[in-house]
Every structure is written in structure tokens, then in C-alpha cells.
């Protein structure tokens, strides 16, 4: 089994040896500071409080040249940002079929850095040589095809910014447990994707009459299989090979994945190796035993593809602390049905709501950043956000959602998420304890 520590640290892998010059300099600088403070008989804390690199002092990092240009062949964040990493659950039974989350509360804007994109795999992350990877297109087509990655990259390409979200984000029963924004809805990320329209590749093979579904299969150890309705395949579905300008990360399906804007993440099959055009769904394990939503009467909703409108305040959010006076409330909103039309924020436990500002660009099926200037008086409050999309759909409360679906449907919880701010300024999960 994979060691949990190995799962999410793409950044450290990229670091390699090359980072060591600047890292060494940084480390020795730190030691010098602590040593100097001790020698002078001052508590380290006092020395820092003296603001040694603030006025009137000349900042230390101005007194000698910095790291060499190109010291990092693949750039990584500042060592001071080491804590901004994926949210990896500790002590799972296994890490082959598991998920790790984006640290939403530490990010700005709408684009998720590639190294912090959420992960959900069912058979681990395969290491695929793109030169040997093949995509087979067969079934109800005129010309069954085998395509190389070179072939796929020769088709006309497109780029779009889209969010991707796991449908179990979070489990209805986990809403009280989540401490941070990431714990609660960290299985959503957003990137600019580049690839070819799935429609273009299907037309290259030539669809036969009766083609109603396309069964996509991954080249991972789970040979993960999902069925995609032909309407989606001929609409905005993509086969993507790049993410935020660079090739897909292995965790995102390198060298090729399906991308279905607005649909539950599991359907955007990674490490894509096969498209079987059929007249009916595969009824695979991932669309029967899993990714089906159990209702109180014991029936289960199947093929629940759409990711409905949702939002969350990421700052201030759980485990953060606010100070009295001005605070900007900011967060993200998204909808699988299209653009976000409106985000309302309540700072009085849902009694009144005001419109937040939406940061341009507000894109179709992408994260949208919202903001509201706010001043905290020091009173305990509950703050929350509520998204409305361009179809008029309004993000529901948890009560409304569970009234309709009960507590056992697991998938597609898009309820409003409240944060409680205590007198101390500490922010915590605002769901009333069960």
C-alpha cells in the first residue's frame, strides 16, 4: 500500500536536489538569526518583535545576491509556504482507493495550482509512458480506431476554465466533523484544461445510428469505467491532455483524461484508454454500487451527473481567527449548470442576506470568486454564503436538502455551509451539532 506521505506531495518531488542552494541559504540564515539572538542574551521572541528587517534596518535579503537564476528548473513555492499542501487524511485503511483535498482556505482567485488539485483514485496513480499509451475507439462506430498521443494532439484544440468536483463533497454525515473549508468541500478544484472535443474524435471514428452512450475506461489498476450519455459527448465534453498550461499531472490522468464540464468528477475518467460507443450504459460498479444516491424509501437515484450550485466562504473559515474591525469575506461559488448569477452572504445567522461582489471573469462551469467587505464588532456571529446560478437554481440549506433526500444519499450534498465566529474571533464549523 502507498504510504500516506507519498500521496500528495507532488511539490516535494518537483523540488528534487536542485532547490538545495537556496534552501541551504534559507536554513543557515535562520540558524544565524536564532544563534545571534541567544548570544546577545535576548529571548528570540524579543529579537523578532524588534522587527530586524523592518525600518530602520536594511532587510537582510537586500545585502547579498539571492539564489541563482534558474536554480530551480521547475519552480516551487517559497519555503515559507510549506504548510500549504493537500489535505491528506491520516490513517486511512488504504491509500489506493482514497481521496485528498485542496486547501481551499489557503488559496486566492479561482485557479487551483496543479500541485494542490484534489485527488480521488480507485486503483492508485499509474505511471504511464505517453509514447506507449493508446486510445481505442470502438463499438457503434464506422471506423474503429487506435490513436497515439501524437495523433490526439494533432486534432484541433480548445482551452476552457472549468471546475471539477467529486460528488461526495462532503458526505451528508460528515458535515459536523469538518473543521476547515478543505475538510468540508476540498474535493473541488478548478483549472484551465486543453484538449480536443470528444465530439471531434467520435466523428473521426464515425458514429453509427443507435449510438446512445460512450463507455470510458481508464488505464489504471481499477480499469475505472463510466458511461457518458451521447448528448454530453457531442456537447461540451473534452479529451484533455493539459492543465493550466502544462501536461496533466499523473494524479489528473496523465497523459489523457475525459473532461465533462459540470458533471460529477468520477465520470471524467483519467488515464483514458478506451471509448466504447454503445446503445446502453455499462451499469458498471461505479454507476451502481457507488455514485448512486440512496433515498429514505430504499430506492437509489442513478446517473446523478449534475453538480448543482454551491458556494463556501473560504476566508474567514474554520480554524482561522478574525480580528475586530474590517475583514473581507471571500469565497468561491460554482454550478454545473452554467454561470454563477449571484452570491448572497449572511452575517447574522441567516436572518438577512446581502449581495456579494463577483470577481470577473464569471465563467461557465468554473469557480467564481465572491467578496463582501465586512466589519466585525466582536459579537459572536454565524456567517454563510448562498449561490444562485444562471438557471435560477438556489443553493439549498442542509435542512431543505435532507428533508428531500434523507441522510443516507452520501453524494451531491451542496448545502449552505455556516461558519461560527466566537467572541475570541475563532472560526469553527457552524452546523448545529447533531
Amino acid at each position: 500500500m502507498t504510504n500516506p506521505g507519498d500521496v500528495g506531495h507532488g511539490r516535494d518531488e518537483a523540488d528534487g536536489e536542485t532547490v538545495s542552494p537556496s534552501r541551504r541559504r534559507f536554513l543557515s540564515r535562520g540558524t544565524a538569526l536564532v544563534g545571534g539572538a541567544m548570544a546577545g542574551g535576548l529571548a528570540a521572541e524579543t529579537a523578532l518583535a524588534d522587527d530586524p528587517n523592518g525600518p530602520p534596518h536594511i532587510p537582510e535579503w537586500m545585502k547579498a545576491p539571492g539564489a541563482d537564476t534558474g536554480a530551480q528548473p521547475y519552480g516551487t513555492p517559497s519555503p515559507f509556504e510549506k504548510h500549504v499542501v493537500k489535505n491528506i487524511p491520516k490513517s486511512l485503511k488504504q491509500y489506493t482507493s482514497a481521496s485528498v483535498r485542496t486547501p481551499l482556505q489557503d488559496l486566492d482567485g479561482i485557479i487551483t495550482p496543479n500541485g494542490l488539485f484534489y485527488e480521488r483514485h480507485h486503483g492508485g496513480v499509474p505511471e504511464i509512458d505517453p509514447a506507449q499509451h493508446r486510445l481505442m475507439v470502438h463499438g457503434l462506430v464506422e471506423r474503429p480506431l487506435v490513436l497515439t498521443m501524437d495523433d490526439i494532439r494533432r486534432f484541433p484544440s480548445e482551452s476552457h476554465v472549468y471546475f471539477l468536483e467529486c460528488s461526495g463533497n462532503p458526505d451528508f454525515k460528515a458535515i459536523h466533523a469538518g473543521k476547515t473549508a478543505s475538510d468540508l468541500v476540498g474535493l473541488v478544484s478548478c483549472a484551465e484544461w486543453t484538449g480536443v472535443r470528444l465530439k471531434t474524435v467520435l466523428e473521426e471514428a464515425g458514429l453509427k445510428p443507435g449510438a446512445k452512450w460512450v463507455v470510458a475506461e481508464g488505464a489504471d489498476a481499477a480499469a475505472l469505467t463510466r458511461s457518458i450519455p451521447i448528448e454530453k459527448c457531442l456537447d461540451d465534453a473534452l479529451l484533455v491532455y493539459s492543465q493550466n498550461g502544462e501536461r496533466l499531472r499523473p494524479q489528473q490522468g496523465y497523459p489523457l483524461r475525459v473532461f465533462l464540464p459540470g458533471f460529477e468528477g468520477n465520470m471524467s475518467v483519467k488515464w483514458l484508454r478506451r471509448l466504447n460507443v454503445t446503445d446502453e450504459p455499462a451499469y458498471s460498479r461505479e454507476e451502481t454500487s457507488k455514485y448512486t444516491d440512496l433515498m429514505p424509501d430504499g430506492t437509489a437515484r442513478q446517473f446523478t451527473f449534475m453538480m448543482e450550485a454551491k458556494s463556501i466562504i473560504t476566508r474567514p473559515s474554520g480554524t482561522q481567527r478574525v480580528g475586530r474591525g474590517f475583514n473581507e469575506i471571500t469565497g468561491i461559488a460554482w454550478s454545473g449548470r452554467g454561470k454563477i448569477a449571484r452570491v448572497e452572504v449572511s452575517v447574522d445567522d441567516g436572518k438577512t442576506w446581502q449581495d456579494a461582489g463577483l470577481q470577473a471573469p464569471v465563467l461557465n462551469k468554473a469557480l467564481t470568486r465572491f467578496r463582501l467587505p465586512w466589519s466585525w464588532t466582536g459579537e459572536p456571529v454565524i456567517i454563510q454564503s448562498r449561490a444562485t446560478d444562471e438557471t435560477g437554481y438556489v443553493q439549498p440549506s442542509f435542512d431543505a436538502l435532507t428533508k428531500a433526500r434523507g441522510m443516507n444519499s452520501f453524494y451531491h450534498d451542496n448545502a449552505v455551509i455556516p461558519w461560527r465566529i466566537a467572541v475570541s474571533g475563532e472560526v469553527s464549523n457552524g452546523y448545529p451539532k447533531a
Partner: protein
Amino acid sequence: MAIRRLEIAAALILALAGSAQAEGRYGLGRPASEAEIAAWNIDIDREGKKLPAGSGSVAHGREVFGAQCASCHGEKGEGGLGDKLVGGKGTLASAKPVKTVGSYWPYAPTLFDYVHRAMPMNAPQSLSNDDVYAVVGYLLNLNGLVADDAVLDAHSLSAVRMPNRDGFVPDPRPDVR
């Protein structure tokens, strides 16, 4: 000169006629042969029409399970590192539903599909078709769905009616306003 120009024109016409572009295609990729498709297409439909040849007994399935599956799923499929595979009948409408092969899976042939493609998790696609039939038979037997002396093959596996076959409904969303 004139002849040369004619040649070029002729070559152009040929190229256009021969190019896939002329048919609205890009001419990328190569044809997939029947044999290649047969080797890669491991999808088994819910009715079992695509189930392969071969067969396996519940008794043999017990051995396969003990050797290849029990370490993760428990001796009797009660669960461990891997999912619980047995029981839960009649719990789906309760406050604590238990979803297993017996209580939740709608079709038996797709159980063959999944075990064949994804299990055992540490060595997927390593079992022979006979062993997959056997171990799937054992799982169905543990769930009281086939007899102790049953032998599973394409025909008998397709004939197994799973208790939750009719348990799935279409997506009615948006359902909350």
C-alpha cells in the same frame, strides 16, 4: 511549363480526394483490428450477453476467495481493509443502510465485470475467467443467491436475479428549491 502545371494540378486533386479532410475527417489514428478490440474490450453488460466462456463452482470459489480476497475482505466477506461484501438485506430503507453485493448490486454479470477488471486489488486482471466465475459464485452463495453446489457460467450467471435489481430510479433533480 504547361505540362508541369497540369501535373501539379492533378497531384493536388488526387491529394484532396485522398485526404480524410475531404470527407470531414482528419485522417488521424489507425484502424483497430477485430483481434485488438476483442483483447481490450472487457466490458460485460448487465444481461451477461458479453460474458466469456468458462465456468467455476462455488466450492472452487471458496478456495479462490480464501487465497486471493479474504486478506482484505474477511474470511466470509464481512469486510476489513476492503468493502463488506455480504449481508445488509432489507436495510436499504433503514437509518443505517448496509450496501453490499447481496443487498445493493442490481446485476450479477456486472459483478463478473468488476471483479475481473479491478480485483484482487493488489493484482487486477490476474484471475482466469474460470476463477472469476468461481469467486463471483462464492460471493453470490455467501449472500444466499445461489446454492452451495452451483456452477457458474455465462448462462447461469445471467440467470441470477439480484434482490435490488429494481431498486434504482432516474435522477429527478433539481428536487430542492
